[in-house]
């Protein structure tokens, strides 16, 4: 009798032990689910100089483009720029003519690109080299406007939940709908780098891309192409 009671007691304790263990595991599972499903909110803010990346991409496209590059037997010579084509699009530096703004089908929307090409083998004693200069423009579109993108981003981040009413009275209407970090992310991802540079005072200097300039008489000169991009909106 005594041994049966002791056996039942032991069984009860074992069952209690297992139940406690299961309860602990269930709590961990619940915490895990709560964390992933309701607490954790992943956001991506890309901190880069978009202007500089766009300028590098654009310079790469320009030196391969049929608008500037030398063609031989319908083959495009990447990095070799044709003087006849350069004269059509740009003006010679120091020629006292108005620098033209042209749309050659290459350019970011809502931007203005200053392109400067210099001939390193035609420099004077003050290291001022001959070359070409001009502006390239991209199309003006509503779709690419930063303020429109920012507005879209902000509207997509507006959140209404059980806490909205509470936050409305405690923190005000803006913080009731948006988390400050959401607004910061929208600003980080959508405000043009050229605008941000005004406040951060950061600078990027570049030596430009090396190129070869081909003259009509067959002469080939070493040169450089500089691309400065201003995304104004």
């Amino acid at each position: 009798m005594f041994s049966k009671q002791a056996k039942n007691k032991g069984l009860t304790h074992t069952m209690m032990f297992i139940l406690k263990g299961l309860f602990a595991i269930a709590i961990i599972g619940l915490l895990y689910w709560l964390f992933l499903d309701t607490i954790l909110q992943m956001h991506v803010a890309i901190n880069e100089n978009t202007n500089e990346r766009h300028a590098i991409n654009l310079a790469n496209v320009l030196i391969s483009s049929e608008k500037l590059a030398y063609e031989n037997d319908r083959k495009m010579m990447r990095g070799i720029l044709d003087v006849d084509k350069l004269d059509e699009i740009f003006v010679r530096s120091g020629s006292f003519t108005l620098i033209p703004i042209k749309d050659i089908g290459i350019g970011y929307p809502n931007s203005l690109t200053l392109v400067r090409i210099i001939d390193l083998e035609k420099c004077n004693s003050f290291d001022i080299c001959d070359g070409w200069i001009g502006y390239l423009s991209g199309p003006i579109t509503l779709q690419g406007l930063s303020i429109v993108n920012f507005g879209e981003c902000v509207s997509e981040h507006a959140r209404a939940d059980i806490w909205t009413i509470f936050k409305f009275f405690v923190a005000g209407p803006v913080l009731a709908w948006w988390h400050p970090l959401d607004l910061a992310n929208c600003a980080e991802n959508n405000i043009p780098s050229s605008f941000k540079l005004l406040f951060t005072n950061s600078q990027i200097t570049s030596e430009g891309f090396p190129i070869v300039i081909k003259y009509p008489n067959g002469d080939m000169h070493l040169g450089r192409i500089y691309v400065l991009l201003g995304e104004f909106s």
Partner: protein
Amino acid sequence: MKAIATSDTIGIAFVVFVLFLFFSQVFPKLISVITDNFSKASGENVARQLSGLITVSGAAPYKIKIDYTPTTEHTYNILMKDRTVKVTPIFTVNYAEKASSTQRFAVGLNDYEQEKVNHFVVEKNFDGESTYVFEASKE
């Protein structure tokens, strides 16, 4: 009485051990994997990659075909208009940001719209003049 105390101690020690193991080993790894996967698959990143790939396809002197699949787990809605690409991710997990991103590119491409896709092809052809083709499908 002594046996009960021992089983309780073992139980508490076990729970503490599991919690310690979870928060020191599993949890950081889990967060790291989620962050890594999500940052690659986010709408912001895919839009930036796509706009970059479209633009640099123009740097190829003759022809080029670029295949890009950011992830096979998620899909995206794509809208291409006026040299901009708008990517809206379709995520099934709650922790992921579902906001869209619009990015600019620098070469001429026809307007294009496609829903629930995750495989993108950018093609540049040259026949006296550069032409660009963009296609998207579900993988």
